């Protein structure tokens, strides 16, 4: 626990110090909503369309952020300093994944209100509680896969391309489940019931991919 804690604080401190990834992801999300407005030529969206716009935007913003996850570790071989420490290397993965969830949460604090303002009507406000539950589970799924893929892509030559290339198909179940889960929440007449089966799918994905990632991540670090 202590090493994970120490590493997690390092991740958060680094992002706070450099402010590289999170502001860019948030800005990207808002801009993408504007792009969608012009692309689909709608002033307001509801139902499946609203769900889709939100999740596609968050997914692409996450892919942007995932690319940056290991950048500071590779500079000056800082990661090697950590590999020399007598700690369980799973702590590294956990710290990265948890920090990624935190970053996504901050991005969503900006992006979701922006989404409401730009593309949703006022009757969508009662979607918020359900939406929060979906966001949490989906963020965990994105973080769990995104960290793994970032770890894979970072040490390759075409890391900026490989990250999204690997990450997007891998995250499709999260998108499918999250979009289906939020679709009734954005229904035009007011929020419908939150479909629990899709929450279950998200939770299952989080657990399965999470466990596998924890099992294999060490192999990405050793040489």
């Amino acid at each position, binding site marked *: 626990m202590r090493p994970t804690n120490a590493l997690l604080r390092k991740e958060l401190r680094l992002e706070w110090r450099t402010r590289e990834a999170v502001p860019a992801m948030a800005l990207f999300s808002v801009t993408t909503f504007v792009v969608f407005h012009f692309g689909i030529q709608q002033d307001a969206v509801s139902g499946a369309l609203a769900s889709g716009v939100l999740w596609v935007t968050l997914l692409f913003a996450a892919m942007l952020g995932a690319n940056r996850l290991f950048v500071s570790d590779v500079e000056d071989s800082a990661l090697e300093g950590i590999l020399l420490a007598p700690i369980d290397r799973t702590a590294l993965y956990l710290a990265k994944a948890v920090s990624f969830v935190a970053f996504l949460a901050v991005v969503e604090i900006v992006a979701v209100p922006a989404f409401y303002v730009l593309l949703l009507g006022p009757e969508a406000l009662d979607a918020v509680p359900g939406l929060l539950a979906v966001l949490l589970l989906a963020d965990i799924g994105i973080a769990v896969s995104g960290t*793994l893929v970032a770890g*894979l*892509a970072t*040490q*390759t*030559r*075409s*890391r900026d*391309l*490989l990250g999204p*290339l*690997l990450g*997007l*198909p*891998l995250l*499709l*179940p999260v998108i*499918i*489940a999250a979009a*289906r889960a939020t679709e009734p929440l954005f229904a035009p007449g007011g929020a419908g019931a939150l479909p629990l*089966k*899709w929450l279950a*799918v998200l939770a*299952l*994905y989080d657990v*399965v*991919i999470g466990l*596998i*990632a924890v099992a*294999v*991540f060490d*192999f*990405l670090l*050793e*040489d």
Partner: protein
Amino acid sequence: MYGKGLRSLSIATAVTLTAAFALGFFYAPMDADQGVMQKIFYVHVPMAIVALLGFVAGAIFAIQHLRSGDRRHDMRSYVAIHMSLILGVGVLVTGSIWAKAAWGHWWLWDEPALVSFLIVFLLYACYQPLRFAIEDPERQARYASVFAIVAGAFVPLNFMAVRMAEAKTHPRVLQDSSNLPGSVWLVFFVALLGMTLLYMTLWRYEMAAKNTRGQIRKLRRRLGADVVAPRSAAPR
């Protein structure tokens, strides 16, 4: 090592595939709605099943590779995934042709098996670019194995999610399987067997070829030639 029994395996494959084709054309009943195009089913579905099993095999070999460090498992994993990808192209093409012939569209979003297969294919299509982007051969093998394991776990998760998403009912052949006559099942199993044998034969051919090439390089190196293997996605 992989050349042993290759000839008999190839003959068995050829015989079974020919039998499957013959049965498919002459023995299997003609579908009332779809006509002769429905017979693509005997190619498309076995190919899909074998391809998916190949991906699973790739994941299993990858686990063995990470546990033992023996690079030969990585070679097997690579070839398994490679073969499955090639079959995967066939699956998507035959699936598309069948969709057009049977239901008028070149692609069907409400066929969950086809859609989830496409997603799996897109994921595994990244396998070789990933390998190619890593120059250190040991690391390349390790990272590829990590990927193969995650992708292998992904396949059932993905299928489940896609299946649940397409709640609309649609005449899916395997769903209405209780109505199918026995002759269809016979041809199907022969075709499945033939496809499996084809996969195994091709797998062995490629393993034998890679093995031989590796041994030649080793011999040349021992004879003094400075052999530098070019950067490649394939394990050496």
